[in-house]
């Protein structure tokens, strides 16, 4: 396009079916804007984003020699790229396009004010036209994508995603904050609805990922910083000291046998003990122990050193220091998973942590597990006796305005599975499931529920207990109103199992802060679109897998991990990304070299340079500029401008909206 060529604008008003057209008078809007100077054609059409809709634009560009296009439809965050591509297919620079949002910002929020909404829509389109008139062609640069991915979180989501990427031939660095990968799934005894053994299906994957030639495992490691952008992220990891030399350790476990000191086991959720030098759990990957300095007598008092003495390979290294690891990756997957809601603190009425025999569902998993603290025997934590009457309470914290508004999506079926655990281990036990609604949406879940319902000693009570209390003899009891029978039932269970709600794992909060990716009101990662882009985040090149995005069961987690991995593979197979064109640009003739812009730039993209004639001017490094426009807003002479959002363009919109 020639600079001073006559501006010829085509304007297209979308009906979006009835989404826009039922509120905004689209015919009137098209007619009104057709009178605006430089508008050559103005049309309305049922679905502008459809193929025929896009073809109208492409045809008109040719027929009417259009050199600017305005589409009034949904949010540019939705379809701007669609129309930019159409404009490009029509032979124009894709940035000679402007969008007016008359759906999310107009018809959907002013449903009952048709006249006012139509007027507002016309104004918005006119403002877009005012900006379009001043648009200039912009360029995108190609940047190579480093063919290496970072996966944060070594649970089932992170493992599955890492394997998929590695199997596609790309390098993966898998980071896990705990000493072993495996995550919460490693704690489960069986998985619903098939009741297959959790370890049996998980551990082969753990081993596979650790042995994969394309995967580097970083266990007991935290992410401390991430810079850069899609294609080129610079990552800083901090590997915590295990005090065991990984290159020498064979995982024989002699050190653990010889260690005389114990501490509550994190993996067993405090139900069991571990040594001061310990494996996270027996099938840990990597099978390398860790010394916990807080409980190690050598670190506390300077004596003992039993592990060092007995280690056959001399792998103990008390002088190990935290190690910084720097990586360059092209894409990142967040798979940080979930933690249980802190019921002890938030819901004291349930007596969790106050009464020993009130446990969480995850703790029951450990009691049932053959490798757990009780070697697979379900016993009461208080006295080690078999419980004959067990109450399982669903929705503890979940679907509760005062706590977590959302459904945890696995508590119901987990609770049903836990009832099955009890009756299959203790056939004469009675189980009471206190529920609000039973939600069995997954494949095979309803059938599983039906099967468990047929047990005579598993009873369902529709209601939640008000408060769990303790009698003078130490036994627990609570009242619950059963809405099905309209009666208050008093239960005296030997053991209470709470199916607690879940929250994002605390590491997510840290990582989200580092990455600046959007977080939803519930604290989980906010996906780019809840239906169409569920694995993408607000940060390009950062994808989501599993419960980091919201509560998920294992099948959904694995499915999303595969989806996130394929997004990463797609990015890497293509090999490049195109940069944003909305970077800053300096008009050297106007620049006085005052330097106001330089310290404002958060990316250190501006430097002051001396030109040949000795004049000092600001210079923008396009590679570093992220296109925020902060410098342009501060420039006193108007020399700094943001391409695609320059002063003239924005002021033209302001004037159109206010006159």
């Amino acid at each position, binding site marked *: 396009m020639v600079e001073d060529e006559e501006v010829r604008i085509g304007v297209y008003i979308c009906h979006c079916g009835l989404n826009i057209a039922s509120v905004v008078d689209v015919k009137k809007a098209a007619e009104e804007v057709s009178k605006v100077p430089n508008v050559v054609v103005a049309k309305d059409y049922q679905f502008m984003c459809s193929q025929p809709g896009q073809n109208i634009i492409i045809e008109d560009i040719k027929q009417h020699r259009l050199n600017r296009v305005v589409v009034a439809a949904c*949010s*540019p*965050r*939705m379809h701007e790229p669609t129309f930019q591509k159409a404009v490009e297919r029509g032979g124009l620079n894709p940035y000679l396009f402007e969008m007016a*949002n008359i*759906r*999310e*910002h*107009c018809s*959907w*929020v*002013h*449903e*009952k*004010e048709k006249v*006012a*909404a139509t*007027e*507002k829509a016309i*104004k*918005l389109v006119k*403002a877009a036209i005012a900006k379009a008139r001043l648009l200039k062609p912009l360029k995108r640069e190609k940047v190579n994508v480093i063919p290496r991915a970072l996966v944060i979180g070594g649970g089932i989501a992170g493992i599955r995603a890492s394997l998929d990427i590695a199997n596609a031939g790309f390098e993966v660095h898998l980071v896990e904050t705990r000493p072993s990968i495996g995550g919460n799934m490693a704690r489960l005894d069986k998985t619903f609805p098939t009741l297959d053994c959790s370890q049996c299906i998980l551990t082969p994957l753990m081993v596979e990922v650790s042995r994969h030639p394309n995967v580097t495992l970083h266990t007991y490691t935290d992410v401390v910083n991430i810079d850069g952008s899609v294609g080129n992220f610079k990552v800083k990891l901090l590997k915590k000291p295990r005090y065991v030399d990984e290159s020498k350790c064979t995982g024989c476990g002699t050190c653990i046998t010889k260690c005389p000191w114990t501490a509550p086991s994190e993996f067993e959720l405090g139900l069991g003990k571990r040594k001061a030098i310990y494996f996270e759990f027996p099938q840990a990957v990597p099978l390398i122990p860790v010394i916990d300095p807080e409980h190690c007598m050598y670190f506390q008092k300077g004596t003992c050193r039993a592990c060092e003495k007995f280690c056959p390979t001399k792998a103990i290294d008390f002088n190990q220091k935290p190690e910084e690891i720097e990586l360059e990756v092209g894409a990142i997957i967040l798979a940080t998973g979930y933690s249980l809601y802190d019921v002890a603190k938030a819901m004291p009425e349930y007596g969790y942590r106050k009464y020993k025999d009130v446990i969480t569902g995850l703790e029951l998993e450990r009691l049932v597990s053959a490798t757990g603290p009780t070697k697979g025997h379900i016993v009461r934590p208080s006295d080690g006796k078999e419980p004959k009457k067990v109450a399982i309470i669903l929705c503890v914290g979940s679907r509760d305005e005062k706590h977590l508004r959302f459904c945890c999506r696995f508590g119901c079926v987990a609770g049903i599975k836990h009832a099955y655990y009890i009756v299959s281990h203790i056939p004469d036990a009675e189980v009471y499931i206190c529920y609000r609604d039973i939600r069995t949406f997954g494949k095979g879940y309803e059938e599983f529920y039906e099967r468990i319902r047929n047990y005579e000693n598993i009873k369902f009570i529709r209601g939640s207990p008000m408060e769990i209390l303790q009698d003078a003899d130490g036994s627990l009891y609570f009242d619950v109103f059963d809405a099905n029978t309209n009666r208050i039932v008093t239960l005296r269970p030997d053991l209470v199992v709470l199916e607690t709600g879940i929250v994002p794992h605390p590491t997510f909060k840290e990582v989200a*802060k580092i990455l*600046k990716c*959007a*977080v*939803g*009101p519930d604290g989980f990662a*906010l996906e780019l679109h809840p239906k169409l882009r569920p694995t993408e985040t*607000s940060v390009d090149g950062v994808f989501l897998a599993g419960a980091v995005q919201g509560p998920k069961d294992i099948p959904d987690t694995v499915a999303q991990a595969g989806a996130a991995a394929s997004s990463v593979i797609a990015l890497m197979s293509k090999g490049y990304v195109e940069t944003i064109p*909305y970077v800053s640009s300096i008009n050297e003739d106007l620049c006085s070299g005052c330097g106001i812009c330089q310290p*404002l730039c*958060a*990316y250190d993209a501006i430097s002051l340079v001396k030109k040949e004639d000795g004049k000092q001017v600001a210079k923008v490094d396009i590679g570093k500029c*992220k*296109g*925020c*426009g*902060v410098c*342009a*807003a*501060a420039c006193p002479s108007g020399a700094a401008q*943001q391409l695609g*959002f320059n*002063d003239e363009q*924005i*002021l033209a*919109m*302001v*004037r159109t*909206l*206010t*006159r």
Partner: protein
Amino acid sequence: MVENFEPNIVVFACNWCSYAGMDLAGTSRIQYPHNLKVIRVMCSGRINPVYILEAFANGADGVLVTGCHPGDCHYISGNYKTRKRIILLERLLEQFGIEKERLRLEWVSASEGEKFANIAKEFVEQIRKLGPNHIAKELRKEVAVV
């Protein structure tokens, strides 16, 4: 209060948090007054105070500037710069004879559609109480005299 006064309010929104939050209000069909019209910029830090003055000079009855919550800026710290600029601008507005209540800065995240709708309702009410912005008319008069 002027009868039948429909304030004209210009909203500046950053692309990442606030504009997305307003989109969410739309997708959730949360209704709010039609008086607000949005101009999208990539970052609230792009908003040159001149744009706000230009809006008032042209007759805007109110200007709402929105950005990511402190600490959440997509561009690290653009919103902090906005906050400083708005505080300074508020002081200047009074000197120009524009009530500082006509300008408001709000943090709206991508998940705060409902919050935005509430701000919109509240702000429109506030401007209704203030009445029309007379500065534009007076400016035009002055221009005519010159």
